[in-house]
């Protein structure tokens, strides 16, 4: 891949003239883009400083930002970085970067560079002139060879008289485009098609700047809507969103992993051969951040051994063979009226019921409910921003009352004043229903959020709804907020109202390769294979199965894994065959990272083992939402590299 660069230093005469009357100069040199990211050297900057030095100019400072044109990040910071004694700013950047600086700083700004004329260079690495964006694509008529960029005169109606030996009169190195078009069309037997074409006339009004400026405005707003960045993958909710919620048959064999949560795994409290009943505790927490595990069916423990696990490969599990009776454990008793329960009692019920975050992360809920700092707002996450999944959507429709009850319990347990149920605007029926149901509660409201991934991530959700920014390394409680999934709230309701621990959940089984997608209430421990089979199995070949959604879900090599507390979906989707190539600094990852990090550096630093660099680029702030990997034009497995970096940084401590 060619090494593309966007700007060149003005010649030294011009620069000398510019510098003549200036001193106390602050220098901003953009790190360039669409350039293979191999080195941090900036020869233009070196040359410029050399010249300024020879003219005995004082340089008050030099900064080298990435993507200077990213105004959201540039503005604000720039003025802080410029020392007081600076009298002017020289910018080494393309026209976009220079304009950004001129707009953001209060000092006279000088362009030390010219943008190189790469008009028409578009595509992966801008190494080839390929599309002039004329808004009236002619490629069908010309066999896929562009007459606008490949012909020096942009002729539309055939070859001019200037071609010599098939080469263009303007540059003899260049093939005559119309010669190539002629050959291509004649090889395809399509010459007549071209000959019979109407006279082609260019329409220079077709590039409708009004449409463009409105689009630009809209897209800029939407990218910053609620929080910086994020992505909008195809939703694909259609496969299962209109399928009814069905109670799935209890499993004959339930495999219940001891680790279904963040933190220490539970330790089994039963032995092989023991008879257990529904709701009976079979594993107890081993640390503060841990959670108990309960039997989801009644029957006999037939094994306690390592079994396949959706995200951990193998994990210790208690295997129960059903007696088909579903006998309830004696501990499963309603806890009475919420009004009669104290905050401590609610937290204890939640802890004993083994409730953990059901959005996927599995953080023990009882820990969340006892924040170290006071909280005023509880956010219930009903966004379900992952594509394909419809489990939370179905839950809201079927268990709206329970969700609200759960929220009330959380409000009481934490002493927060306000509860907000956040639902994305792609679920209008759920929004309407919950708005109706919450109308009677003064302290509970529904917030409709414009669909954008990763809306459901705690920090994004908080920013979106409250405008508060969780500090780097901080927790939601640091800004007075606790975030919980709607399914978790429903589980809290069950634990209080029915006395039932967390032994079942709603799962979407969906994707283009599931014969009959559906939504199921399944017992924890139900095998994924049985759910997939119930949906008619997997169709087609070259299929990728994931536990969870396509963005953050885990690729499954076997269906012999159980449904767990955090299993919101099983998806079977098209596999994608790609190959990693070098980063070209296209900047897309920087544009979409909701944590406002610069993932391109992670790719380079991980390959170099530069863990200090990763730490300095705040790798620990990454929430692994995979937006960067999704958008990466070089198909770099960024999350893998980020995880390696995080592990290394943790060890550094």
């Amino acid at each position, binding site marked *: 891949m060619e090494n593309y660069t966007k700007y060149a230093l003005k010649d030294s005469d011009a620069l000398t003239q510019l510098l003549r009357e200036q001193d106390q100069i602050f220098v901003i040199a953009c790190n360039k883009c669409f350039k293979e990211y191999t080195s941090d050297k900036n020869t233009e900057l070196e040359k410029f400083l050399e010249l300024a030095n020879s003219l005995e100019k004082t340089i008050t400072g030099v900064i080298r930002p990435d993507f200077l044109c990213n105004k959201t990040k540039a503005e604000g910071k720039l003025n802080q970085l410029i020392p007081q004694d600076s009298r002017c700013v020289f910018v080494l950047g393309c026209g976009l970067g220079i304009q950004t600086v001129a707009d953001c700083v209060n000092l006279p700004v000088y362009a030390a560079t010219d943008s190189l004329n790469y008009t028409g260079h578009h595509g992966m690495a801008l190494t080839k002139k390929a599309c002039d964006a004329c808004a009236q694509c002619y490629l069908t008529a010309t066999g896929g060879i562009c007459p606008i960029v490949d012909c020096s005169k942009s002729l539309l109606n055939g070859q001019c008289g200037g071609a010599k030996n098939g080469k263009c009169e303007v540059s003899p190195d260049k093939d005559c485009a119309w010669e190539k078009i002629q050959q291509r069309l004649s090889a395809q037997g399509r010459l007549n098609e071209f000959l019979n074409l109407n006279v082609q*006339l*260019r*329409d*220079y*009004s*077709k590039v409708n700047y009004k449409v463009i400026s409105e689009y630009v405005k809209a897209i800029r707003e939407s990218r910053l809507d609620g929080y910086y960045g994020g992505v909008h993958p195809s939703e694909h909710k259609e496969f299962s969103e209109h399928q009814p919620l069905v109670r799935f048959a209890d499993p004959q064999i339930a495999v219940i992993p001891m680790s279904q949560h963040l933190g220490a795994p539970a330790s089994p409290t039963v032995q092989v051969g023991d008879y257990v009943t529904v709701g009976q505790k079979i594993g107890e927490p081993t640390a503060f951040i841990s959670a108990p595990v309960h039997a989801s069916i009644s029957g006999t423990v037939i094994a306690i051994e390592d079994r396949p696990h959706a995200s951990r490969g193998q994990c210790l599990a208690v295997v129960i063979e059903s007696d088909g009776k579903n006998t309830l454990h004696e501990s499963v008793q309603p806890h009475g009226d919420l009004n009669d329960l104290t905050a401590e009692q609610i937290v204890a019920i939640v802890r004993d019921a083994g409730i953990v975050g059901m959005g996927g992360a599995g953080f023990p809920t009882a820990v969340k409910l006892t924040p170290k700092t006071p909280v005023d707002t509880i956010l219930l996450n009903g966004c379900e921003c992952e594509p394909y999944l419809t489990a939370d959507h179905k839950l809201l429709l079927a268990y709206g009352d329970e969700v609200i009850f759960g929220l009330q319990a959380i409000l009481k347990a934490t002493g927060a004043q306000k509860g907000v149920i956040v639902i994305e605007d792609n679920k209008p029926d759920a929004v309407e229903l919950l708005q109706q149901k919450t109308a009677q509660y003064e302290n509970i409201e529904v917030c409709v959020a414009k669909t954008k991934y990763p809306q459901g991530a705690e920090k994004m959700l908080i920013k979106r709804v409250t405008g508060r920014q969780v500090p780097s390394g901080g927790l939601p409680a640091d800004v007075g907020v606790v975030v919980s999934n709607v399914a978790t709230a429903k589980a809290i309701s069950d634990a209080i109202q029915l006395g039932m621990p967390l032994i079942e959940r709603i799962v979407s089984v969906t994707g283009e390769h599931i014969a009959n997608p559906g939504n199921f209430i399944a017992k924890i421990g139900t095998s994924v294979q049985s759910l997939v089979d119930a949906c008619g199995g997997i169709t087609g070949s070259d299929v990728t199965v994931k536990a969870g959604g396509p963005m953050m879900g885990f690729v499954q090599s076997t269906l012999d894994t159980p449904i767990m507390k955090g299993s919101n979906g099983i998806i079977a989707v098209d596999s994608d065959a790609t190959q990693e190539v070098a980063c070209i600094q296209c900047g897309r990852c920087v544009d979409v990272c909701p944590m406002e990090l610069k993932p391109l550096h992670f790719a380079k630093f991980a390959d170099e083992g530069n863990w200090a660099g990763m730490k300095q680029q705040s790798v620990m702030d990454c929430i692994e939402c995979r937006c960067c990997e999704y958008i990466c034009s070089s198909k770099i497995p960024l999350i893998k590299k980020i995880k390696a970096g995080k592990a290394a940084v943790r060890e550094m401590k």
Partner: protein
Amino acid sequence: MRITELFDKGQFVVTAEVGPPKGIDASHLVDEAKTYLSGITAVNVTDNQSSVMRMGSLPACVALKNAGLTPILQLTCRDRNRIALQSELLGAAMLGIDNILCLTGDHTKMGDHPQAKPVFDLDSVSLLHTVCQLEKGVDLGGNALLGEAPKFAKGAVVSPCSESVDAQLAKMERKVMAGAEYFQTQAVYEPEKFIEFMEKAKQFGKPVQLGIVIPKSAGMAKFMNNNVAGIHIPQEMIDELAADKEKAKAGITGVEIAARIIKECKPYCQGVHIMALGWESKVPEILKLAGI
């Protein structure tokens, strides 16, 4: 005759504007000009005015010249690149057209061929510069011209009543620097604004002709207020046009207003340029009323 010679003599220079037809018969244009405009100094011939395609300015200039009038060739940068503009100028010089007015030109999207490619290879300033180069016997590419170099009276335009008067003055200064020898202005309806502008423009030391567009009706006045750049017609004037519709229709009100503006501004400018927009027949009357 170059009209700059008259400015130099201190003469109050009167010009008017005509538009070539959308067709090949220029007889009406010539007849009207002969009948109503033979008394004035020179006649501007527009160059596809408002980006509406018409007969070219140069041939229409030749037709007027053959009829005994002094034409001013208007030249815009919208439709021709630097090669075409220079060759047009050489052709004009050969045909004895030696008065020109250099303009950037309206955008193509404003006219009747919005799909056309807007050229703007040069603009009014660089066009004036180009003319100066040709006058020195060199083209823009630095190549020598054969034989005698052309010589033009080089005009340019300015909008004295624009809301962006500072930007207009800056541009005027650049035009002077590039070689403009006289200016014609956009239509003026507010003498006080014009006088204020002239106070500032005095420093350039170039003659300025007051621009006049005859207001035909209250409707036209409102339309211009809403749509035409650099023009603002005060409400009193619109009321005056609306007061007696018959009088306005007969052109009497418009002629009165135009003459009044000229009278008021005459001490501050070096000429007047009337854009009659089809009412060429009213020009003699305006001048009579204005005492010219």
